[in-house]
């Protein structure tokens, strides 16, 4: 009763084998392709200059012709890490302000999904970068990680304020020149009015205009 006809079952088994094999191959290839595409996404931000500087300083090789490398002192590394934290704050601000806008645009369908993927990837990388900076800060100085970002925030806000103030102060010279020209033209108009009326009342006007002009000169 249990005499199974193995030869007859070969065909169905082959069929199932081929079916399963092709499904497994297809799904693994598809996943690999998707992962590769997400890794190839165009980066959101340009290369992180301050991070490169910090890591280059950390890993500086000895120069040609010298025996040992000049050890980069800790103070330089701390300054470099602080600059790196500043740039990170700048980027985080950009990401946070772009997030709402991007999600709204995505819902309306104005932007494609790949842009949103790039944005999400940038956000994730940013979080990793922040954690990395805190760890490095703690390594350079005990408990610095807690307040490095506060300090960096203040420095960033301060530098933006300073640039704005410098712009405003730069307007001082051009404004002065403009004002001098304007006063000169007003005075030359007075001179013209002085010259034209040659009548008797002109003397009285002349005296008044003279006193006005001298008053203006004294106010300088």
């Amino acid at each position, binding site marked *: 009763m249990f005499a199974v006809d193995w030869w007859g079952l070969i065909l169905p088994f082959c069929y199932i084998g081929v079916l399963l094999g092709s499904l497994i191959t297809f799904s693994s290839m598809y996943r690999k392709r998707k992962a590769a595409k997400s890794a190839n996404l165009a980066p*959101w*931000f340009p290369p992180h*200059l301050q991070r490169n*500087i910090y890591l280059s*300083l950390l890993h500086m090789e000895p120069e040609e012709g010298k025996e040992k490398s000049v050890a980069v002192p*800790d103070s330089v590394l701390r300054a470099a890490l602080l600059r790196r934290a500043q740039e990170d704050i700048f980027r985080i601000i950009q990401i946070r302000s772009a997030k709402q806008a991007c999600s709204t645009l995505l819902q309306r369908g104005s932007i494609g999904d790949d842009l949103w993927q790039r944005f999400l990837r940038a956000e994730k990388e940013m979080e990793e970068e922040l954690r990395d900076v805190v760890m490095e800060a703690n390594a350079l100085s005990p408990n610095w990680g807690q307040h490095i970002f506060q*300090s960096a925030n203040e420095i960033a806000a301060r530098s933006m*304020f300073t640039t*704005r103030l410098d712009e405003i102060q730069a307007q001082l010279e051009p404004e002065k020149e403009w*004002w001098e020209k304007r006063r000169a033209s007003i005075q030359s108009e007075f001179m013209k009015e002085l010259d034209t009326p040659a009548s008797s009342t002109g003397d009285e006007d002349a005296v008044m205009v003279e006193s006005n002009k001298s008053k203006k000169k004294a106010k300088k």
Partner: protein
Amino acid sequence: MDDSETFTQLPIRMDPASKAITTSSSSRALQEELAALNNLHKSLLQLESPVPPPPIPVNQKRSANITKLRESGNAEFRKGKHAEAIKLYALGLQMALGRPHWEPSGLVRDEVAGLYANRAQAHMAMSNWVEGLVDAEASVEAKKVGNAKAWWRKGRCLMEMGRLEEAKEWVGRGLEMEGDEADLVGLLKDIEEKEKKA
């Protein structure tokens, strides 16, 4: 952004004597960044602690000095010695802006706003409309809301210089920020009257 495992090794080297970082590459961005780094390093070296302290507990000495300078400037102004007042305010501004960058920027803004506004008033008393204009604008930049004095002073300077269109626009913006401040409304009326006469 690069992969978190890799980074780009940049062609930089450190000068062993001055501990400044230089580069052989000609990239302008890199050179500017290194200049900023070297400046920051120098200012960090002047601190006693290895790292910048957290911003919140502020050293009171500098704040006390700045307040003293502002008070003496106000006293000189009331006595009528405007040039003296301007000098004192300028000194206070130097102190306030010379604060290290990691101290709270909000505090710096408040101090700077007050000093610039008072210096603008002193300039206006001497009829230096241009300097008063620039200082009032700097004060507004430092503190946009709650700074009706500075908005009014720049509007007045513009009016005195005869730039009535700009003055009207400026006072309009000031009213948006301050919300119907009596002085600003009065100033706007003055400007409009002057426009009608011209």
